[in-house]
């Protein structure tokens, strides 16, 4: 396996620590005139998203991680398993409910997503920042409720519940921010 010496360390490097892939998100070079160099790094775990602080001294090395970013599309869900397809080589990937996390709420068949592969296997799949979802069920809003500060839960086509302003009706298409889970705007009235 390839490795990186401290002299190769830079932001954006993908490395393996304790058998997990990390992205070097910060690298600070500190060196006294006559002493050894210290490389103070912040590394983000590509699976769990946690950030690790590590210091390396000049001459240390880290294993390179085989990580690539690809475009893929969501095919379908079968109970607890989600199926995706690599848009370039048409490879198919299976992800568990746990791996997909909260993103299941936004996945519509055919949706273009972004995936990170480690040793050829997907470790994270990210939907677009904004997705449009059809409201399948909601309680009717009280008449005259046009203000946006009155909210209610609605059920969208993926089966997820989204908190929306009270004026949203069944059949409306709403735009949702997948990073926060928040309602953004009404995309169309059906």
């Amino acid at each position, binding site marked *: 396996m390839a490795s990186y010496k401290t002299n190769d360390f830079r932001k*954006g490097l993908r490395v393996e620590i304790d058998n997990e892939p990390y992205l070097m998100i910060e690298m600070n*070079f500190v060196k006294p005139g006559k002493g050894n*160099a*210290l490389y*103070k790094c912040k590394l983000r775990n590509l699976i769990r998203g946690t950030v690790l602080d*590590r210091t390396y001294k000049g001459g*240390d090395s880290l294993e390179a991680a085989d990580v690539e970013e690809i475009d893929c599309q969501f095919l379908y869900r079968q109970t607890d398993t989600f199926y995706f397809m690599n848009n370039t080589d048409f490879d198919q990937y299976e992800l568990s409910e746990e791996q997909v996390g909260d993103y299941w709420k936004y996945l519509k068949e055919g949706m273009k997503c972004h995936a990170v592969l480690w040793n050829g296997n997907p470790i994270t799949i990210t939907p677009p920042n904004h997705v449009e979802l059809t409201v399948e069920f909601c309680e009717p809003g009280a008449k005259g409720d046009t203000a946006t500060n009155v909210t209610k839960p609605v059920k969208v086509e993926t089966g997820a519940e989204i908190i929306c302003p009270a004026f949203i009706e069944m059949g409306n298409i709403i735009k949702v921010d997948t990073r926060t889970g928040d309602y953004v705007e009404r995309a169309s009235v059906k």
Partner: protein
Amino acid sequence: MAYLIITNGLDKGQHFVLSNGENIVGRDEEAQIHLSLNAVNRQHACVVVQCDSVLIQDLNSVNGTFVNGERLQQDLLLNDGDLIQIADLEMKFCTDTAASESHKFRSTSTVETLIARSGLLKQLREFFYDSGFDEVETPVLSADTVVDRYLHPISVEVAGKQHWLQTSPEFGMKRLIASGMQAIFQICHAFRDEERGPLHNLEFTMVEWYQVGHSTQEAMDFLGKLITSMLSYSGYDTISYSDAFQQILKIDPLKSTEKELINVIASLDFEPPQDWRGMNRDDWLDLLMTEFIQPRLGFEQPCILYDYPASQSALARLHPEKPLVAERFELFVQGIELANGYHELLDAEQLLQRNIKTNALRQLDDRPELPNDSYLADAMRHGLPDCCGVALGFDRLVMLALGKKSIRDVIPFPFARA
């Protein structure tokens, strides 16, 4: 690869490489695209790079983000050539590497800074001439090199023989002192492989001077006079290495054992290296120095730290009365290590012993062995007059004089663009 290139104003031509994920545009020091304008919010806008699409979003900025003249109301996909306006600044979004490559001929420093740098060079030269120094020039490429565990000279083969780009002009200048010169200074380039960061560039400018007959105290006084004159301070402080450690960390750096030093580090908020192979007592002292002592030195006025441990003497002579220290001192300004000085080692036999010891450590580190013998050793055998020598990083001096945060801002072309 996608870039933003500034197309107007003083920083015209500066370009920012967009990395994958979020790139914050703002006045915040941490922002990837740092714009130091008052009309820009700390986090003004965000450019998100995902696979082949690049999106811009306004982060509820006060003065707004404009793309091709229209104020952003919602996230927008950027196309090659789009013009982004933030405050008075215009930036071009560019996916074509060739177009941005064509701007790499430019200096990373502004014209104003380069002119101010020229003024500082002139002022420095005048200071030395007025103090009775002669300016000298010694080889940058030499068959000799300083033997130091953590200095990595760049090797160059000439006519089948190994030479080195000098990590400092020390050897050449001491040979001139041994040849009869009395007070000399040099402003030259030095090279240290693997050094890069906000305070480091592989090739940098060093000011070095030697004065025959100077005591350590006189050499420190001269350095203090030079720095207060160059950076307009009213005075400078001095503190011994030992007192600084006692005051800040409550430990004795000369007598503590390696284990005691490691225990101190464990009690502090710092993530030490995990791999301790090859680390010795001096490495732990250095670590405490760079992380906890140095960041507190030289904020009110420049600070000279003196009486370094004998184990870190390098080319300084040992103190005749204090067996644990060497006659070595360093200058710090605003937490930045700026200069290093020695009451010079004169004994050729001691130099040889130190070189052998250092080469053994280099071998342990998997670093190439460097020659133990040199023209300098010959000069010392012949007789090097009692003298003091000091080396000062000129680029860092310019940074401090002009309030710049990175060496890139004060040198014409950093190594990546050299």
